[in-house]
């Protein structure tokens, strides 16, 4: 029985992964779950379908290789773990064993961005850039915990691989009322409409983007927030429409390196389609190894926290000073 949630509630995206996979295990007898020792939230699946659950221990490479072997034999494997390791230590297995033969392997993980206070060994900040460069890979980054379940369900019918990025996934804000938006892989969500500037974002910073937009509304600035949760394939039509409907003013906010992630994906569309912009600013992690600190502290320190977001949006809509 699906549980409904309310906007603003806090919910664990990890528990949604666990419950969704356990639910899907009943209807998909070829669904397997493989984890490199990160299976605490997969207990229900493990206990119900022990012969389709594999915990390989601390071994990311073989977790992806096994998933590919299972997929070759007609199964739907999910690899669940921490993304810094699945996206980098096992990168070549993801590319060669999964993407090259275009197998339906789902990589679902936590610790996307500067989250969890683990230090730079434990932050996945290059992952979207790496995954977007892989042929056949669909790349997503999800902030709303309820959406996670919906996307996993949709991904069951996909022919090729998908990468699903979460933040820590322990306590995430429900962003959307059930049924409020159409959730479709490859389509962005206009999380808040606005006409002065578009703020593109994904994952854990969607909530921050909505807060920034709310603050600016008090000053009469109308910010459109687009949750571009599918980075690949990117919703190019939506980007083009936003350019014409919000004065060609774009700000991109993401918990990822400022170059290589969503900002780069958006900039590529702008260049490829010859879209004329008035302004373009990217807020994300500069080329630093970020150090310790809580999520919000780190975002502030590295220039993409709430204050920086509000400031960037103000700059975007500020009148261009007349040249002397």
């Amino acid at each position, binding site marked *: 029985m699906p549980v409904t949630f309310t906007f603003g509630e806090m919910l664990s995206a990890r528990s949604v992964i666990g419950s969704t996979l356990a639910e899907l295990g009943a209807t998909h007898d070829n669904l*397997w779950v493989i984890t490199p020792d990160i299976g605490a939230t997969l207990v229900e699946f493990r206990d119900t379908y022990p*012969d*389709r659950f*594999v915990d*390989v*221990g601390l*071994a990311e*490479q*073989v977790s*992806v*290789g*096994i*998933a*590919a*072997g*299972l*997929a*070759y*034999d*007609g*199964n739907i*494997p999910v690899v669940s773990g921490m993304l810094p390791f699945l996206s980098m230590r096992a990168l*070549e*297995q993801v590319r*060669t*064993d999964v993407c*090259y*033969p*275009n197998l339906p392997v789902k990589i679902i993980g936590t610790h996307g961005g500067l989250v969890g206070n683990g230090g730079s060994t434990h932050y996945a900040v290059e992952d979207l850039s790496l995954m977007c460069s892989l042929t056949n890979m669909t790349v997503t980054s999800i902030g709303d915990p309820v959406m996670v379940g919906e996307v996993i369900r949709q991904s069951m019918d996909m022919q090729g691989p998908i990468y699903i990025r979460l933040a820590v996934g322990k306590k995430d804000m429900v962003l959307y009322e059930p049924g409020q938006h159409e959730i479709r892989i490859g389509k962005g969500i206009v999380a808040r409409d606005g006409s002065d500037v578009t703020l593109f974002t994904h994952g854990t910073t969607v909530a921050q983007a909505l807060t920034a937009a709310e603050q600016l509304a008090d000053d009469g600035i109308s910010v459109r927030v687009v949750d571009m949760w599918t980075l690949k394939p990117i919703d190019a039509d939506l980007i083009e429409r936003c350019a014409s409907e919000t004065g060609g003013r774009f700000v991109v906010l993401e918990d990822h390196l400022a170059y290589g992630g969503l900002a780069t994906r958006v900039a590529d569309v702008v260049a490829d389609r010859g879209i004329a912009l008035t302004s373009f600013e990217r807020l994300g992690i500069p080329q630093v190894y970020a150090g310790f600190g809580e999520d919000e502290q780190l975002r502030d320190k590295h220039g993409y926290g709430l204050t920086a977001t509000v400031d960037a949006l103000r700059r975007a809509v500020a009148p261009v000073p007349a040249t002397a």
Partner: protein
Amino acid sequence: MTQTVLDTEPDHSVEELEDLAYELRRLLLNLCGTYEGAVHIGGDLSVADILTALFHRGLRIDPNDIRNPARDRFVLSKGHAAVCMYIAMAMRGFFDYDDIVATYGQLDSAYGMHPCKVQLPGVEASTGSLGHGLPLAVGMALSARHRRETHRVVTLMGDGETGEGSVWEAAMAGRSQKLGNLVAFIDRNRQLMTSFAEERVMFEPYPDKWRAFGWNVVEVDGHDMRQLVDAIDALPDPTSDVPTVIICETVKGKGVDFMERNLAWHAGSLGAQDLERAMAALEASRNKEAH
């Protein structure tokens, strides 16, 4: 489920298999003499006997029914031996040898340096990057076990590639998952691309390493067809719990004296003159062994 009868080829005698391995080497050299680019001739020649034993006796497969779920799966982990596998499979009826020779390495050919399942559905997996075959085989063996199917999943690795950490991750996983349906052949030719293995990497005590990982270890002369056949015939029941590794002592370049244990012949091409020389060496080697 009605199981389609596989293994349409009768069991060959050891002598017949030896003849087939000789023919495989001859066809391999012939392709190297036709194709202008480099072929991994050294590592191809070292696995010619193993691939012959597998494709003409060990594997339950049917070239006319390549997707039969009951078939044994074969993953060529040392993907650079692709051309030897293509020809071994052609001799078994999967592909047309003339087609391989006519198109090898060319634009839009299904046959190239490393096997691609997308281009050539007759092979089980796309391989080439080393250390990937055993993890794939573990996944396939798990799937078979889950379906209560009793086919085997067989992979062939070079000893050099077992320097990759992923191999040992998979060795642990295969034993932990109790996959008696998993079989790894190792082409123990003791050569890397640019050096003799033990000069650079201490692999020994090699069989003990596999024993320490809990595997059933069998050691054979990888060029002795009788020993290969006996090892295959003695494989444990696929429903058992312990995976098997068959460590095959081999010689890189085997059968062509000037290529044997010669670092220059990891990969190369044969002009008309070298082809003639290689063919003569192959025949001489055969005559020597026959006496």
